[in-house]
């Protein structure tokens, strides 16, 4: 090219107008853009025409109208006289509740099973493999149905509730637990807990500095447990035993009092955790296998025992591999919680569907869903990216 250019006196050889990649790219983009605008224009035209025909006024004004339907499980005060927007907030809170509790249980189960799959113990390994292979290959909706229809709904009626320890009962209407009633002076317990956590942090920090300076170790874990458990217990005794438990009472047809976990929540929570745990287990396993064997061997060579090796050498490195796919599993769990609508757990989608059937505001409701779920996805990935950045390898 260069020699040719000089031979022709500096001016670069020009391609034909239509063969110039830049011009071509521009033309393609203009065509795509025009097509897009045309399609959107066509859709908007059709939609307004359809809405006009079926007498639906578009817009979000309906959110302020009286909803007129009840919701079985509400975290904030809500009645059928509340507005639609309140119903959506209740639904969103229910979604968050099941997602967060599901994520916690799924992580615990997933880590246990994932580590179990790498166990030296043949039996444990096999049990964990069977668990993963079963749950990974069936639809989550089926797991939800399984818990709801096959396990929780065939439990005995309230009359013949199954009695469990600590005065709790299990029956077809849900799981009945004793409820704590916070009497006067309960703030002392909370104070004790906060103090315990704060002091554990300080102790851990002090221990780290001291170990860095002198090499002496300090039993941080034991101290922290002692502080976090001990201080609230101390406060409980000092406060004159302010907390009383209200036990569910068995009457002829139902159980009254106490704290009830509805079967819808329970089945969704269990199903999502069991299902997602099988994926998390595979991620954990891959993460641990991804840390090269030399790391373990080197750590043994410098005299670390298997426990500290796992805790100080393998897991920190494995976490770097684990976190990105783990994030997407957490997001999947949150999104799968929308399957709640199939068993009547009042999550965001279920509430939205009721609102949609009542008002016919399909576009607005779908838009609300999309914005909220996109927001949740975004928030989770921002948090996990921050966590990932903290855990990432610091290189030069």
């Amino acid at each position, binding site marked *: 090219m260069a020699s040719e250019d000089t031979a022709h006196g500096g001016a670069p050889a020009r391609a034909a107008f239509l063969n110039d990649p830049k011009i071509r*790219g521009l033309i*393609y*983009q203009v065509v*795509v*853009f025009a097509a*897009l605008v045309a399609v959107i224009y066509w*859709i908007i035209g*059709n*939609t307004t*025409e*359809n*809405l006009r*025909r079926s007498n639906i006024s578009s817009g979000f004004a309906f959110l302020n109208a009286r909803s007129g339907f009840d919701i079985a499980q509400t975290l904030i005060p809500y009645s059928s006289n509340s507005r639609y927007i309140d119903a959506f907030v209740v639904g969103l809170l229910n979604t968050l509740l099941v997602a967060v509790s599901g994520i916690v249980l799924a992580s615990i189960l997933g880590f246990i099973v994932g580590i179990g799959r790498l*166990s*030296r*113990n*043949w*039996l*444990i390994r096999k*049990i964990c493999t069977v668990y993963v*292979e*079963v749950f*990974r*290959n*069936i*639809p*989550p*909706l*089926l797991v939800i*149905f*399984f818990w709801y*229809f*096959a*396990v929780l*709904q*065939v439990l005995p009626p309230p009359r013949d509730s199954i009695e469990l320890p600590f005065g709790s009962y299990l029956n077809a209407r849900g799981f009945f637990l004793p409820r704590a009633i916070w009497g006067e002076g309960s703030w002392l317990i909370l104070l004790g807990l906060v103090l315990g956590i704060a002091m554990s942090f300080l102790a851990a920090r002090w221990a780290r500095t001291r170990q860095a300076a002198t090499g002496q170790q300090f039993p941080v874990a034991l101290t922290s447990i002692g502080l976090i458990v001990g201080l609230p217990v101390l406060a409980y005794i000092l406060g004159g035993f302010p907390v009383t438990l209200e036990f569910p009472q068995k009457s002829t047809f139902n159980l009254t009092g106490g704290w009830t976990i509805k079967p819808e929540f329970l089945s969704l929570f269990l199903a999502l955790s069991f299902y997602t745990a099988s994926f998390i287990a595979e991620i954990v396993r891959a993460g641990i296998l991804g840390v090269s064997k030399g790391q373990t061997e080197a750590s043994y060579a410098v005299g670390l025992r298997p426990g500290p090796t796992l805790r100080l050498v393998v897991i920190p490195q494995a976490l770097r591999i684990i976190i990105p796919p783990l994030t997407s599993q957490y997001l999947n769990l949150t*999104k*799968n*919680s*929308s*399957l709640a*609508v*199939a068993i009547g757990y009042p999550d965001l*989608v279920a509430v939205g*569907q009721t609102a*949609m059937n009542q008002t016919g505001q*399909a*576009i607005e409701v*779908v838009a609300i*869903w*999309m914005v909220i*779920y*996109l927001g949740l*996805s*975004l928030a989770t990935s921002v948090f996990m990216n921050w966590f990932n950045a903290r855990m990432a390898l610091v290189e030069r």
Partner: protein
Amino acid sequence: MTFVRTEMVAAQPAPRGERGIVQWLRKNLFATPVDSVLTVIGLLFVAYTVPPLLRWAFIDAQWTGTDRTFCSTVAQGGIHPDGWSGACWAFVSAKFQQFMYGRYTFTQRWRVDYTAIMFVLLLVPLLIPRAPYKMLNAFLFFIVFPIVAYFLLVGGYFGLTYVPTQLWGGLLVTMVLSFVGIAVSLPLGILLALGRRSSLPVVKMLCVTFIEIVRGVPLVTVLFMASVMLPLFLPTGMTFDRLLRALVGVAMFASAYMAEVIRGGLQAIPKGQYEGADSLGLSYWQKMILIVLPQALKLVIPGIVNTFIGLFKDTSLVYIIGMFDLLGIVRQNFSDAAWASPQTPMSGLLFAGFVFWIFCFGMSRYSIFMERRLDTSHR
């Protein structure tokens, strides 16, 4: 004076503690005290769960029967002694036809059978690497088969009676949704992935927006959108089949996921490959089709198959928008008064779960097999 051995000494057997079943047990089950405790817990768990399950599923199961009395206890109005608990396979066998075809016109079900036979006959040679005529086979499977299957299943032409899709159900719907979803999402996913890496800003923005929005929301909302909003978007009077709406939703959803998987493959191809293709004077599409995509797709086969498996499992969600795939029709039959008993849900769900499991497990095993086969170890 000197002694030179001419024959090898036979190797001595390992010490007794190091061979045989005892050694295996010691190494695999009782290596340390903690291991022994775990083994005992594991054994207790197995002993506590497996025998009752086997008993429930086989020994105490009710295999034949005509209605719910065969699957309930005396107290529930049935024939079994109180306290009996066993699988109700009679329910599954009585409803088997429904689970497979839904409410597909009874006299026309041979059409579904023929489609299924055709599907298997074309798919199996496609999956066996050594089978000849791959191009012809793929052409028949991906182009000819869908057309034939459409006319055969829907009917209305060539003297076949018309079977509206409202009557379809069961495994038939699951298979149709998965097949179409897979067949549409792969090419569409490739286009979206290429678009996302394109240098044309408008195309890129369009693809990124589509992918990120669809991936950020649950499939349920996409299905609702397809079933509720699509009719609004189209001119008045233009109706859209419900199955088709579900297909649009599923295909859109799967394409976005597929695009991200394929993008991973495209990014893993070294820049030299792109530059090499450019320096040979290949056009964009020649470069992609001949050089980049074959390598990129091979790299991400596990991801692609995982997306297929996810799609197959996700087809069960169409139940939420009022269609009855395999899971949906099993669920619908729980409320059949003739069969409602405490054992019915568990039996029906186990059957559906087993069918889903066979398909998904088969796909994942096949992907592992292909991965090994295609591994040229160039990485």
